[in-house]
């Protein structure tokens, strides 16, 4: 471990640590522009110059380009180094427009900071300033090239780190220009990070443009709840509104970055149409009256037998507090067990995934970056958990092989192997891969069931001839791999797939590999919901109960089955059959509009909460602001408002879990803090794993890992791995998630609308050929509940025998079965344009 002396202080650092990083460990912040911990050193800006006094290097050198080594003595305050840094800053300011007063980066601008700290204050340059034209880059990012200091961070992030190639450096010398070939929406779904990494104001946040200075904002750590990864963020609030979200460094989850769905997924919070008042039978009332109305309805079902006529559903966007409270209320009041998922299979898959996340298999998102072989099974990273795609890319850049076994038309921003096959065959392929890659001799130490499992794997010969060569080639790479990871989806896949993924991982572990297992789950709190859910209970079973007449009252807690339930007609009928529908939510969902009694709830930004991500990492968020209607809305655009009072307008909403607490017992409700404490005690009784999770106030930035209390999760399934099913000339329909437009909360963000594109249906090229269809045709697909119409996208990059329908908001796709859905080829018709 090299030891280096910087400014008379000694520090021992890990080999390969740059001097700039070593200094940072000492608390010395050497100026930098081009250096960024995630992007590395390139030595372009030259502002990190320090003087090397002793050791292998001498004189003024860039601290970002030199590894700290023994015997090095470095001065950051040496006159020569200081003079050079000052000169560099002077150079960078020659053409700067000095438009700080109107720049949205003002106040959080590295260039401002360095200009001041570097001591450059007086302009000596007498020449003219260079000016650049700006480009339209889409709805998210404002371009202002005159502020550019040419640190190349943007193109390095965008292309090298992110894998997209529509933004980069053009021209040269002092005309170097960063932008696109032509104006237009940036292709990368990670483009918002440009705002965070740009050390000045070239890329600024467009939706929040001119809204405030960083110091004007209430800024607080937050969390993205737009998918299951749980990326850490910082939100900025002002005038009772969340206005901006940025990435927050998380060493275990998202690193320095977040995706655009996450960055811009918060607008639901401050929409004008956000419901703020209770409604009982179409009349606006107070919370107390609404709660009284609910209680009154519940009276009818008070006695023991009738209690079963009440059901309650939460969802994966509930905080852990709410999820727990939903269950607690149901249990205490002896209602039906709560539903958190659309169908029972989802519960099953999540439960099996959770039970298989053993401590030495579970890997974090960051750990994926150091894998050398990654098999993705039944997951579409970019569309289901965008930051996963970015993590996979980092692994691939370091040389990892990424193989995706999934029927969908998968795109990832790097070179990878896609082995499209239907949902049954993907297991066969992966089984054959393992079979070919693992030496039976090395597996000797396996116990009986494991050996049996190994013996049951498909052989390479059993898979299609066309695929064999690919599998054999991959097997060679897997054989050589030290640190393989299995990534497995839990949403689209068959019931046993998540458990099989764990078995595959265990097999590799037995072969001496240091294996990782990573699941992708539905929703921000799918993990916790899966844990708390009762097996075989789902929205679908509730519907069946309503249909049978056994359920008469339904309470939906931040849950909107109409968004995603595959058979809309059936759901709507069931809702009509109910005697009472109570909805608690913070969005004005379709189902909220049908409620007999509606109670508004608070959002994550107002109440905080705990969310458990897909690896079982519980992360807590404190409230970001006090809530209420944005001033812009109360003032009708006028500011400041002319009506004064002590109450915050529009602050009636309460946390769902607090509202629910009113429905238990008769005693005086507890304070929020006490109630939370009670919830935690109660959770610990459900699973001792919860004991490890601190309450929201105490959760550390890295979160706390939840591991299910050890119990006999069945390892190595007895059932044979699933083979291929012949679908008899039918196409299996899969309704799938997209990066933008299918996730409920972010779908309310106006700025993301343009990114969602228009609805399409994907079909495999030879299937299309058989049906005489070509790319771009408008088609109608006759599903069980009626026809779905969209443009066809024909691709060879997906499995045959499938029809992939993205759940686009503008597509009326909910006409499917609740189980598998098939269509006959003659149910697909070409429409006239």
């Amino acid at each position, binding site marked *: 471990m090299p030891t280096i002396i910087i400014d008379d202080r000694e520090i021992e650092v890990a080999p390969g640590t740059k001097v700039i990083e070593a200094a940072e460990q000492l608390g010395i912040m050497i100026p930098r522009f081009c250096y960024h911990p995630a992007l590395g050193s390139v030595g372009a800006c030259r502002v990190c110059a320090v003087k090397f006094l002793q050791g292998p290097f001498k004189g003024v050198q860039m601290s970002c380009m030199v590894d700290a080594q023994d015997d090095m003595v470095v001065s950051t305050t040496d006159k020569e180094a200081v003079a050079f840094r000052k000169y560099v800053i002077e150079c960078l300011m020659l053409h700067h427009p000095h438009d700080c007063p109107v720049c949205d980066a003002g106040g959080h601008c590295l260039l401002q900071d360095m200009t001041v700290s570097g001591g450059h204050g007086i302009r000596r340059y007498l020449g003219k300033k260079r000016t650049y034209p700006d480009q339209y880059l889409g709805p998210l990012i404002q371009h202002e090239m005159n502020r550019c200091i040419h640190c190349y961070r943007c193109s390095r992030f965008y292309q090298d780190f992110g894998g997209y190639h*529509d933004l980069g*450096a*053009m*021209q040269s010398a002092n005309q170097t220009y960063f932008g696109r*070939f032509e104006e237009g929406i940036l292709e990368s779904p990670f483009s918002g990070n440009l705002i965070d990494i740009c050390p000045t104001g070239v890329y600024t946040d467009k939706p929040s443009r001119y809204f405030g200075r960083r110091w004007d904002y209430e800024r607080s750590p937050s969390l993205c709840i737009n998918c299951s990864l749980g990326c850490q963020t910082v939100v900025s609030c002002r005038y009772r509104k969340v206005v901006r979200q940025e990435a927050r460094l998380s060493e275990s989850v998202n690193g320095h970055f977040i995706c655009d769905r996450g960055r811009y997924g918060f607008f639901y919070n401050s929409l004008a149409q956000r419901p703020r008042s209770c409604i009982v039978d179409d009349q606006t009332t107070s919370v107390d009256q609404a709660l009284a109305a609910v209680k009154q309805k519940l009276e009818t079902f008070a006695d023991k037998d009738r209690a079963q006529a009440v059901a309650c559903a939460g969802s994966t966007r509930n905080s852990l507090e709410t999820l727990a409270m939903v269950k607690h209320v149901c249990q205490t009041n002896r209602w039906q067990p709560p539903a958190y998922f659309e169908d029972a299979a989802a519960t099953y898959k999540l439960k099996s995934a959770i039970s298989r996340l053993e401590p030495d298999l579970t890997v974090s998102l960051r750990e994926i970056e150091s894998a050398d072989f990654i098999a993705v099974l039944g997951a579409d990273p970019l569309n289901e958990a965008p930051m996963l795609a970015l993590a996979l890319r980092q692994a691939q850049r370091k040389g990892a092989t990424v193989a995706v076994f999934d029927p969908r038309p998968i795109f990832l921003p790097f070179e990878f192997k896609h082995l499209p096959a239907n949902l049954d065959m993907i297991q066969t392929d992966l089984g054959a891969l393992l079979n070919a890659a693992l030496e039976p001799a090395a597996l000797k130490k396996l116990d009986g069931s494991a050996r049996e499992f190994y013996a049951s794997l498909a052989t390479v010969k059993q898979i299609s001839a066309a695929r064999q060569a690919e599998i054999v080639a991959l097997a060679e790479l897997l054989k050589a791999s030290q640190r393989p990871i299995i990534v497995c989806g839990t949403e689209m896949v068959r019931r046993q797939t998540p458990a099989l993924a764990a078995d595959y991982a265990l097999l590799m572990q037995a072969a001496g590999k240091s294996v990782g297992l990573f699941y992708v789950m539905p929703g921000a709190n799918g993990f916790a919901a899966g844990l708390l859910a009762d097996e075989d209970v789902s929205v679908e079973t509730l519907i069946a109960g309503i249909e049978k007449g056994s359920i008469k009252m339904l309470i939906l807690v931040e849950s909107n089955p109409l968004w995603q339930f595959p058979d809309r007609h059936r759901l709507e009928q069931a809702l009509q059959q109910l005697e009472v529908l109570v909805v608690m939510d913070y969005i004005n969902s379709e189902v909220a509009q049908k409620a007999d009694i509606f109670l508004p709830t608070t959002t994550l930004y107002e109440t905080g909460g705990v969310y458990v991500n897909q690896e079982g990492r519980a992360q807590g968020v404190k409230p970001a602001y006090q809530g209420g209607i944005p001033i812009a809305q109360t003032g009708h655009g006028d500011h400041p408002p002319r009506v004064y009072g002590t109450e915050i307008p529009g602050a009636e909403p309460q946390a769902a879990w607090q509202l629910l607490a009113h429905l238990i017992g008769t005693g005086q409700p507890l304070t929020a803090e006490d109630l939370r404490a009670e919830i935690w005690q109660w959770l610990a009784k459900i699973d001792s794993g919860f004991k490890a999770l601190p309450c929201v106030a105490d959760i550390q930035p890295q979160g706390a890992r939840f591991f299910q209390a050890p119990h006999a999760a069945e390892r190595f399934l007895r059932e044979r791995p699933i083979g291929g099913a012949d679908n008899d000339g039918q196409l299996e329909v899969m309704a799938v998630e997209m990066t933008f437009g299918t996730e409920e909360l972010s779908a309310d963000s106006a700025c993301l609308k343009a990114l969602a594109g228009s609805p399409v249906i994907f079909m495999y090229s030879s299937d299309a050929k058989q049906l005489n269809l070509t790319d771009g045709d408008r088609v109608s697909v006759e599903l069980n509940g009626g026809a779905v119409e969209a443009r066809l996208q024909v691709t060879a990059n997906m499995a045959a025998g499938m029809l992939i329908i993205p759940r686009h908001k503008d597509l009326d796709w909910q006409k499917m079965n609740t189980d598998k859905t098939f269509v006959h080829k003659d149910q697909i018709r070409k429409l006239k344009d």
Partner: protein
Amino acid sequence: MLPDKLKKTLEKQIAHTDHPRELVVDAMLALQDHYGYLSDAAVEEAASLLGMSALEVEELATFYTFIYREPVGKYVIHVCDSLICWMDGYESVKNYLCEKLNIEVGGTSTDGLFTLLPVCCIGYCDQAPAMLINRKVYGDLTPEKIDQILEKFRSEA
């Protein structure tokens, strides 16, 4: 649109190499020869031939002196303005050309034949002042010599 023959030639060349990107300058020069300059469409064609994005091609196209991203005349005159030519009469050569072609530096003559651009040392300092026309050199320039050269190109055009 790229003529089939040129497209085939380029495709063949590209198929022949392990790294298509190696050929990006060749492809740009070929397309430029065909179109007269590297038009937006040509950038996109080069990109699709080479499996690159248009931006990636643009990153290079705008870097190189001899790739023209704007329309130029049939003959591009690059007059050397580096030290030796500068000392030996670059200024008068440039002025003479401007006057003869009735254009300014960077402009194209109204007949669309000539574009005049400065260029850094072209490696013919022993024949200063010198210039290139369509990448062919003309050295030891005098007004008479320039007249002859322009005449020759005019008559060929």
